[in-house]
Structure formats: structure tokens, C-alpha cells
């Protein structure tokens, strides 16, 4: 799979150790990973397994302490300076003093697009996440799900080929989450972006991904990589098929095997 398409992210022997007051903490050890163009890769694992840290290393929000990593063939720092990716955080992180359209415009202002281009992109991305008609609202006037959709629109407006998403739907209820998962899949299919998606929900990971990276804690490492055999077209009820359940079972086994402690 990774042989045919150029690698968007490529890590080898990647490690990151945080120096804390209680001594060093190994957040990541020996991570070898290659993500090809157009893939949808989920990172799943219990808290403390380093899945968010790995995403932050790709985004150059953390510096690795050993090994090497490249993003689009560059160092993560160069990739960030070139604005190679859009990042969606756990919370919407919208600026309360900006209306929804001004929030989506924020990255466009920073990269210095013309007003006309900004207006066009704001309209297109808000349409994409079904938020048309809410342009003039302020974030605190919207529900949590709408806020998170606005933050996805903000990342999409940026129009990078790589989308990094850190538990974007973690704080939302099941119904909204299903809806957004479906929309995200449609979006991925339409735009052919590469998506790295951190989650701790097994059904979400299996439903969305072409590949699932199972991680385990203490020290944070990759314990299994599972290729999904599901078709690209995925209606919500695919989650009841035996094929889906089989993959979910493999992920669950991987998670259990990785646990070095009793639960």
C-alpha cells in the first residue's frame, strides 16, 4: 500500500522523552510509521500511550528526542512553516471575539490571502460542514457540535493536503458524533486529503480508517498496525456487518495485548 503512493509522513526509530520533576517519561519509543497520500490513519490506544504526542510531533508542536521524522519529505518544522497541514484540536478553540466566518478567516488572514479569495473559501468550507447561515454568529451562541464543525471548517479553509485531528469528536454525544463521522468520511472521499485521526473509540477508528495504528502506554509505542478491508463506501450500518466486527475485535485484542498492567 505504502509502496505505490509517496509518503506524506515517514518516521523511523522515533522517540520522545519528557523531562519531568518525577524523572524522565518516555512518551514515544521506537515508532516506525509511514503514511501514504490519501490514507485515513487512526491512532488508538488508552490515555498515556502517546497518540496525541505523536500527532503533535508530526505537527512540530513537540520536538522528538531520538530517531527521525519527515513530513512531505521535509522536517516537521519546515513543513509547518510551509503550512503543510491543518490541525483540529480536542476542543474547538474558536476565538470568542470573532464571528464564525471571521474565525474561519483567521488562517487565511495569516497567510495573507486576498479578501475575495477569503470570502470564497469561507463560503465553500462552511457549506462543506453544513454551517451556512451561521456566518455572523459568535462561537458561544452555537452548540458544541457546531463549534467543532466550525473548527474543522477553519482547518479545511487552510486547504492543506494533510489533516491532523486530535480526538476532535471526543467531547460530543453519540448522535452528533455519528453524524460528524459520516460527514468526515464524505469529505475525505471528495477531497482526497491525507488524514491522521486520534481517537479512543474502537468503532470510530474502524468506521473511519483505511489503517488503524494501535498504541500502548508505558513506554508509549506502536503495538499493532491493522489494514482495514472495508470498502471505501461506508454507510453507518456497516458497523453491524461481520467484517466490521472482525476488525474491531482485532483492534480490541491489540489494545489488550499492549496493556502491561492489570485492569
Amino acid at each position, binding site marked *: 500500500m505504502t509502496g505505490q503512493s509517496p509518503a506524506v509522513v515517514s518516521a523511523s526509530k522515533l522517540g520522545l522523552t519528557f523531562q519531568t520533576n518525577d524523572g524522565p517519561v518516555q512518551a514515544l519509543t521506537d515508532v516506525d510509521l509511514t503514511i501514504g497520500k490519501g490514507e485515513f490513519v487512526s491512532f488508538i490506544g488508552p490515555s498515556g500511550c502517546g497518540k496525541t504526542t505523536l500527532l503533535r510531533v508530526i*505537527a*512540530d*508542536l513537540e520536538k522528538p528526542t531520538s530517531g527521525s521524522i519527515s513530513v512531505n519529505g521535509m522536517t516537521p518544522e519546515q513543513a*509547518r*512553516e*510551509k*503550512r503543510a*497541514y*491543518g*490541525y483540529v*484540536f*480536542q*476542543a474547538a*478553540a474558536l*476565538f*470568542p*471575539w470573532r464571528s464564525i466566518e471571521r474565525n474561519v478567516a*483567521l*488562517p487565511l*488572514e*495569516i*497567510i495573507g490571502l486576498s479578501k475575495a479569495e477569503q470570502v470564497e473559501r469561507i463560503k465553500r468550507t462552511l457549506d462543506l460542514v453544513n454551517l451556512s447561515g451561521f456566518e455572523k454568529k*459568535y462561537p*458561544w451562541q452555537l452548540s458544541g457540535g457546531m463549534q467543532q464543525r466550525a473548527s474543522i471548517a477553519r482547518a479545511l479553509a*487552510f486547504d492543506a493536503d494533510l489533516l491532523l485531528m486530535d480526538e476532535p469528536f471526543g467531547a460530543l454525544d453519540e448522535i452528533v458524533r455519528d453524524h460528524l463521522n459520516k460527514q468526515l468520511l464524505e469529505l475525505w472521499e471528495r477531497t482526497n486529503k491525507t488524514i491522521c485521526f486520534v481517537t479512543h473509540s474502537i468503532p470510530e477508528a474502524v468506521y473511519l480508517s483505511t489503517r488503524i495504528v494501535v498504541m500502548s502506554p508505558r513506554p508509549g509505542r506502536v503495538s499493532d498496525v491493522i489494514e482495514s478491508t472495508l470498502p471505501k463506501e461506508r454507510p453507518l450500518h456497516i458497523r453491524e456487518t461481520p467484517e466490521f466486527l472482525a476488525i474491531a475485535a482485532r483492534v480490541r485484542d491489540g489494545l489488550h495485548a499492549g496493556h502491561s498492567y492489570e485492569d
Partner: protein
Amino acid sequence: MNWLKPSWQAVLAILLCLIAIALGAMTKPEATALADPTGSFTYPYLGTKALTFGLAMLAALVSMVRIPPITEAVVLFVGAHLVAWLLITGINGFEGTALAPYFLLLAAGWLLGWRCVAVLSSLRPLAKWARTGLRLIIPAIFGAWILIIWEAVTRGAGIPFILLPPPSAIGARIANSLPVLGADVRQTIFKAVIFGYVVGNAAGFVAAILADRVPFLRRGLLPIGNMVSALPIIGVAPIMVMWFGFDWQSKAAVVIIMTFFPMLVNTVAGLAASGHMERDLMRTYASGYWQTLFKLRLPAAAPFIFNALKINSTLALIGAIVAEFFGTPVVGMGFRISTEVGRMNIDMVWAEIAVAALAGSVFYGVVALFERAVTFWHPSVRGG
């Protein structure tokens, strides 16, 4: 008894009136006249005593009948203020002769005013103009009764003018000295305060940005700024007069010193107020220092900056007035206060105090209005 709804204020007011009637004379001249029925004396409340008591008790009784609250409030308002007006005008020329019933009647009137405010506060009108009106009327009645009691007590008990002049005398002094007060306001507020406030705040703001940008300044400047804020104004003011002369420039310098530090500290705190996630977000956009500053950190710091602006609005006024005690041309609010105290013109001192309080409130109010417009998004402004 369905048509009655007793209130303790009204019952107590009637009780106070009855005690006052039983005690008899309202003032010393009246007591003398009662003791000597053959003589002819003029004494206060000769014709209005029955009317005053009647009004107070009537208003109290009517207020307890089951009538619409707005009617009740109007009855109480008219009753309480007529009683107060009769009391205060009646004592004219007989200051310092009041006896216990005078004060009991004043207390009864105040209770009616209290009940009136209580009734108004419990109203929940639907129309917006009515709500706005109520928001203004309630504190106005409250403030009016502070002045009424002040006036009635100082005149009834004959408190020496030097200790506490009645508000009517202060009002008359203000009306008669408008040109002098105007000149003082121009000198102190429009020159020293405004200039010092603008420069002091701007300097504190720029220093905060510099301290944020340049690490060695952050380490070095903040402790020194802290020391400057601890300088006693009483010590600094005469030195500023030596440096910058007698005119308003030296007062502006004192104001600058006083306002600099609150702005510096608050802005530094505000610049640290934006969340990690928001700053990471700006980092993922490869946003530069100044872009992050203007698009994220300064808007997030706005509530802190306005806090400093509000604190400084009162500090600046205090600083300029106190600084004028240490040498000034013969104009200015602080100068006027210090000289008129020496000449025992206490009403002029009070007039300056009233003007300073008014100017300070307006200053603060304007800054607060501006704050509401700029930080409309903050939970404390948008309400949750």
C-alpha cells in the same frame, strides 16, 4: 381583612407618628409656647404640624390597602417626599431646636421611602423602557433619601457648619461658584489627569509589550516597576514640582507614575491569558510574533487591560488632586481644597469633593461603557 396587606415599614411609621404626637412639642420654641399658653410666640410647624402627621399616616394606611403596586408606590413616593419637604422647610430659621418628635417624623418618612423602593424593586415590568426607568428611579430615590436625612439631621440638630454643612448649602455654593469650579476642573482634570492618564497607560502598555518581547526586560523591568508603584505619592509629588514646575505638568508626572504600574502588571498578566490550545493553533499556522499578538493575545488580554484602565481612572484623579497640595498656580481642585480648608470655607471643600466625585464617576462610567463594547464576548459581559 382581604383588602389589607400590612407591611412592617408602614406599621412602624404609623407607630412612630403616634409616639411623636404623644411626646408633644416638635421643637424648643413650640415647647416654650406650650408651657406658656398666654404668650404669643411664633414657632415652627404652627400651621403644618397636623398636615405633616396626617400625610405620613394617610400614606402609610393607604399603602396597606390592596391596590396595584404601582399606585402604592406613587402614594408612598408622594407621601414620603411631602413629609420630608414640610419637615425641612418648616425648620427654616429655627435650626438646632428640633426635639425627639422631629426625628421620629423624619424616621417615619424614611420608612415610607424605604417601602416605596421595596415595592418598586419587586416590580417586574415587561416593557424595556419601564425596566430602564426603574433601574434609574430606584437608586435615585435611594440617593435622594441620603441627602434628605443629611439635610434634616444637620439642620434639625444644628450640627456646626464646620463639621458637616447641609447639602443645600453645598448645592448653593456649587451654583454660586461655577466659574471657579470650572477653572479648577479644567486645570486639574482636563490638563493634568487626562494627559497623565493617557501617557501613563500608554507607557505601561508599551513597557508590557517590550517586557513580553525581550526576556531580559521581563526579568529586570518588572521588579523595578514594582518599586516605582510602591513610591509614596506624598514624597514624589514635591520632587515632581521641583522637576517640572508649578503648573499642571508636575501633576501629570505624578499621575503617570501612579497609572504606569497597574497598566504594566495587568497587561503582562493579560498577555499570558490566552490558552495553550489557541497558541498552538497560531503555531500550526506558522503565525509570527506580531500576528499572534494582534490576532490572539491582545484580544484575550482586553479584559485585563480594561481592568487597569478602570483602576487608573480613579487613581489618576486622586493623584492629581493630592499632588496639587504641594505647590500649584492659584487654580486647581487640590489647591482649592487645601486653601479653603485653611479659610474654614468647608462648603467650598465639599463642593470640590462633589465635583470630583461626579467627574470620577463619569470618567469610570465612560471607560466601563467602552469596555462593554470591546469585550462583548467575555462571559462577564455577555452574561454566562
